[in-house]
């Protein structure tokens, strides 16, 4: 169980991080559009910002994941 639990939990976390970033970006943009009446400028900007943040954070977390649990080489050597 120990082998897969921690990596699985980590990857689940990355997935949710992606979703949260994009949804928060869109939600904030939508709220800003409602306040300023500039629909859909801020929604699009929010979506882009969320996506950018998701990519940045996601790549950082994936690099950390690969450093921790090994890339393809280690996986092959284990086999």
């Amino acid at each position: 169980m120990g082998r897969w639990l921690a990596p699985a939990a980590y990857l689940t976390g990355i997935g949710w991080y992606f979703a949260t970033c994009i949804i928060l970006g869109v939600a904030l943009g939508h709220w800003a559009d409602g306040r300023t009446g500039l629909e859909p400028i801020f929604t699009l900007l929010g979506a882009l910002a969320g996506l950018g943040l998701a990519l940045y954070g996601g790549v950082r977390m994936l690099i950390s994941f690969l450093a921790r649990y090994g890339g393809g080489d280690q996986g092959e050597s284990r086999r």
Partner: protein
Amino acid sequence: MKKVVIGVIAAVAVIGWLGIGLLIARGPQPEVILPAEIITRVGPLNISNTLITAWMSMAFLIVLSLVATRGMRLLPSGVQNFVEAVIEFLLDQVEQVAGTVNGRRFFAAVATFFLFIIVSNWMGLLPIFNAIGKTEDVGAEIFHEIVLHAEEGKPFEEDEHFSAWFMENAGGFAITKPGGEAVEFEIPAGTSAGEALDRYIVFLAESFTDFERHGGEEHGAPTAEEVRAALEALEADPEAPKLLLAEVGEEGEHADAEAEGGHGEAGHGVESPALGVVVAGVDFPGQKLALVIPVFRSTFSDVNNTFALGICSFILVEFWGLQSLGLGYLRKFFNFSNPVLTFVGFLELISEFIRIVSFAFRLFGNIFAGEVLILMLTYLMPFLLVDIIYGLELFVGFIQAAVFALLTLVFAVMAVEHHDEEHEGEHTSEQHAASHGGLAHT
């Protein structure tokens, strides 16, 4: 042949199981309420049903650890053995990820997260959850809302939605009974108090008597004839709700309405535009419109609790980062040596806060969805599918506890390691620059 017989027996068992479930154990049509329900108030504090179950989980864990550590033996048995096995499993997991030194340092918090979440999630699957509760008198509440709007003289600003079951009692404690159908009443935005009252009269007649609206839109405003017909239908049926009428301006009538024991609002009433009379209250002599507000509801089906836990996790991670690296830890976020690093630091800072939201919504979404799924299937397909979903929910409860605890652990490890990695990065870039310089020289 043997396989065919087994197949037939299995099919009969499945259909029989489903049939028995539908006949005797069908839950009432669920009313999905997103925020946790307030059970009682202590001073300024609202005691919600999810808070009560959080305390229950804590009490369970405290009692379990007291029992397990009382009269400890070198060769453990019974509860002590079980608890030791769990703790050893967790310690092993934590040390695998964080190493021995950091693992032991983070263990207490990470294991607390795991145990608290898993106990709360699994406790939420007990049959007493979402089944026992105090009954809320929705029938009286709707009238109260209309009276409030009438007093303010304002129309309803937003769509108001009320759901309820037909119940014998309202205002006491009850166990949800099988097979209840829910009724729903809506007041669209922009409706005045008087129009809302007319809608309510027609809704009561449709729900409690054979009255049906003829022609027109189903959800449109009722005509004056329809409201009058609805009132007649209500008066004809002795079991149906009764309107407590009062003439405009005559206080004596209001007093009568109160004396009859209805849900009248003292000294207030709403004038029905269609009937031209003031209604001071509604009395339910037979069945009532009420909902069971559960006393026990799964702790993490409340986003407040998951946010609280997410914030705890965030504070701990930042604390460990600062403890290990001192103020140098903050360089990760505030690095003004060049514009790129400043921007990256800003992204890191936002990332840190997004983790709280991500933590909160992952746990809340999974547990709340599971709860709604079980309630829905208890209503649609009791026994058969619910059994499978219960198994799934046990798994989800475990996985979510593990995800929360392990992610806190991984973030903690990243926080305390970050500085070294950065130094390594700087080191290698220095070497890189040096080697490039070297090449340039040669």
